[in-house]
């Protein structure tokens, strides 16, 4: 199947008007010996019907679980029908970045509204149009902090998502920053003493996550003033965006940047992407933050309209002196998030509470199993860590019943090798949870 409208007669006429005899005459700038003489070694073209069958066949080699107990950075939530309908409008999904504002008012206004909602939820004054994902948003906050303060030390709490720490590590390595890791304490919260010891006047940024990778809600207010006393910037991350429905936002507790993953807001799990990186900051960084910003202004007749603004921060103008190299972001995912938030409205709080309830029911039930114990004592949102005999066998048993089990923490935390990280969202019913417990018990 080709998507080319040219008839042979069209092509003949066009070749005549550009004065060529063969199409290959257009490719003579390619040195002769490099011009391909044969077709690429790829499978032959398919009709739409055939390609549809092929793709369904590939899809069918995936197995969808009946129950998912996996969170660990990506969350299974219900997506209201309106979200899919809005982002399927091809005026949105087939447009490029809104460089021509007069014919892009739709997405510009939608992004402006998205930025507003994100700023409110994170307790910040400013949010951008999105980053690639939560991890790269965190890494870009690090780069911005280091450049702003002209410092090169980054303090990272070990209870941040391992993959986020790895991404921060990659960006730090490429920029020559030093990364210092701080342990968590017995309760599952960050070790405040170790953190305060590590932060010094070379520290550009302190990175934390709440709820952290173990699902635990950090007490951000308890470290904020100490971080700032050393002149460092506080970057607070999150992976489970629905937690913003009940938790006091980091922005209201003194964080300089709130960064995180917005997938939970109306975006499917998609085997890892696309998602959207949320990036919010205080007013102070408005002219420095990476990424696109939609801003309100007026047209020649004084009518309200929206444009991409403060573009002198960006690579296409400032080139090597730009804040970041980011160009494309995740606009359509941000649109999905915006629609999701409008749809939920104040119910976001009720949804978050429901997640909290389900997770606590699962936690209570698993804690009651013989040989199982809850590892951390600090309060959780919708994820928690259990120590159990032989986690691999537990997961295998669940898999055999079509259930995706918990995240095996031993891979990234040798000290937690007998531990599983579980997640419960509103998608789990009481029956599901009871079934999980009985599968584990039945040995």
């Amino acid at each position, binding site marked *: 199947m080709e998507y080319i409208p040219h008839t042979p007669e069209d092509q003949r006429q066009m070749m005549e008007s550009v004065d060529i005899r063969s199409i290959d005459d257009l490719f003579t700038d390619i040195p002769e010996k490099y011009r391909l003489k044969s077709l690429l070694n790829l499978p032959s073209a398919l009709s739409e019907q055939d390609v549809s069958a092929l793709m369904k066949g590939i899809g069918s080699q995936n197995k969808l679980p009946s129950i998912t107990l996996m969170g660990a950075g990506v969350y299974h939530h219900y997506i209201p029908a309106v979200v899919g309908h809005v982002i399927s409008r091809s005026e949105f999904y087939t447009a490029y970045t809104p460089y021509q504002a007069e014919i892009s008012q739709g997405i510009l206004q939608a992004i402006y509204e998205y930025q507003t909602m994100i700023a409110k939820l994170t307790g910040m004054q400013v949010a951008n149009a999105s980053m690639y994902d939560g991890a790269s948003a965190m890494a870009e906050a690090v780069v911005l902090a280091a450049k702003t303060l002209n410092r090169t030390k980054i303090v990272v709490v070990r209870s941040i998502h391992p993959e986020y720490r790895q991404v921060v590590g990659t960006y730090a390595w490429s920029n020559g920053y030093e990364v210092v890791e701080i342990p968590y304490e017995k309760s599952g919260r960050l070790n405040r003493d170790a953190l305060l010891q590590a932060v010094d006047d070379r520290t550009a940024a302190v990175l934390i996550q709440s709820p952290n990778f173990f699902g635990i809600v950090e007490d951000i207010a308890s470290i904020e003033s100490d971080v700032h006393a050393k002149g460092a910037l506080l970057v607070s991350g999150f992976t489970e965006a629905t937690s913003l429905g009940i938790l006091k936002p980091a922005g209201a507790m003194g964080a300089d940047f709130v960064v995180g993953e917005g997938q939970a807001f109306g975006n499917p799990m998609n085997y890892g992407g696309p998602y959207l990186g949320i990036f919010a900051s205080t007013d102070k960084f408005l002219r420095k933050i990476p990424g696109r910003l939609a*801003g309100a202004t007026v047209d020649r007749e004084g009518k309200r309209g929206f444009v991409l603004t403060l573009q002198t921060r960006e690579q296409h103008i400032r080139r090597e002196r730009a804040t970041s190299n980011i160009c494309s972001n995740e606009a359509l995912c941000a649109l999905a998030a915006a629609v999701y938030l409008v749809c939920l409205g104040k119910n976001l709080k009720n949804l978050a509470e429901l997640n909290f309830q389900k997770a606590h029911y699962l936690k209570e039930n698993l804690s009651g199993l013989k040989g199982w114990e809850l590892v951390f004592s600090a309060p959780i949102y919708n994820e928690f860590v259990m120590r159990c005999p032989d986690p691999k066998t537990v997961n295998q048993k669940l898999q055999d019943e079509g259930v*995706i089990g918990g995240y095996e923490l031993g891979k990234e935390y040798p000290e937690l090798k007998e531990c599983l990280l579980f997640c419960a969202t509103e998608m789990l019913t009481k029956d599901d949870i009871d079934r999980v417990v009985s599968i584990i018990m039945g040995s």
Partner: protein
Amino acid sequence: MELIFEKSRPGRGATTIPRSDVPEVSVGSIMDKNLLREDVDLPEVAEVDLIRHYTQLSKRNFGVDVGFYPLGSCTMKYNPKINEDVAKLPEFTALHPYAPADFSQGSLQLMYKLRQYLSEIFGMADFALQPAAGAHGELTGIMVIKKFFEKKGERRSHILIPDAAHGTNPASGALCGYRTVTVRSNREGGVDIDHLRELMTDDTAGLMLTNPNTLGLFERNIEQVAEIVHAKDGFLYCDGANANAFMGKARPGDLGFDVIQLNLHKTFSTPHGCGGPGSGPVGVGEKLVSHLPIPRVVKREDIYDWDYNCPDSIGRVRAFYGNFNVMVKAYTYIRSLGPDGLKRASEIAVLNANYVKEKLKPYYDLAYDRVCMHECVFSGRRQVKESGVHTSDIAKRLLDYGYHPPTIYFPMIVPEAIMIEPNETESKETLDAFCDTMIAIAHEAKGNPDLVRSAPLTTPVRRLDDVKAAREPDVCWKGIR
């Protein structure tokens, strides 16, 4: 148009949350009050309000499905609908990235094969699919080069970038800690070979070259360029943003490129979604494979799985494996077109660009009068001189005629640049009508320059005040409903 916040009314809602079926635990009993928020300040609207709001917004937005979109360097080709349908299959969308390999054989296989197809199309040893967009791919590619030198115990200080390059190139280089040094273009629009030779030293990590370049011209001296860069053990990096020009015609790997990043949302027709999601796979030659991001999909006796054991890797550039759902669309596209279809896509893209170039040549100054690849670049300097009409005015006038304008003021080495990329999916009639409009605007510029300068007249808003937007930034609504 009203903001969604202005449409909000207390007590209205667009959803109900299911009732809890588990014993209640009070949040307050478990969490300290100072960890909890008081209110969620989000709009309150009914479902019908929501749908009408976004439908109205969509009508104020221009996509490829609305009309011709010759935005140079962005490859705004038609996006086949089957790709969208396939990407929405629950087997692809509803799987958790940490699903065990047992559950994800389809997704793993798709990524494994996509890597193979891309390697074949571009003549590279292997590809990594993790980067989320083109610029992210650039950054990853430069990190891979940096890692290579580090492993060799070498430190190189700078990277060369032609003056015609996309802004992302110098920004990506800088984000990797490299100083960027600019190479001049020659009179033909290619790399100034003497200047390159002068700048290329043992301290140069490599050259980031867009080929065809941002003037839409293929680098004729590519062999010499590769030779000069490789003579100092540097790497030749290809910005593959313009890959739609040569699929099935030539392969960057054969031409001497060591690294390439692609933009699946351009060349492989996964739609751009108003600014993403994209996908920016990075391909490399044999020497650099071990430095690609982790994890890597591997196939062990017909079972696909993730391999995390890659000690020489740069690490991760984002969480998980990349924009998988975009890859599904690109994979579908490659399988639909096949080798002959991909080749023909490039051939017709190039024919269309040359057709437009020839038709408009008498009316606008061509930056470089030679055969172009998939896009052609004009300068509006004649219009400025004759009637004071600028390229931005011409672009805004195109809006009145129902077109998305070309890319303007880029590349920066062409004054008043107008960069037109028609793409293979546009018919002769569409191109003729567009060219007629461009010619009509050239006449208007002479006869009635005020009309062109006051455009657009028919859009939902008139020209917007960018200066006010930047001087008095308002990026979050602070109004009271």
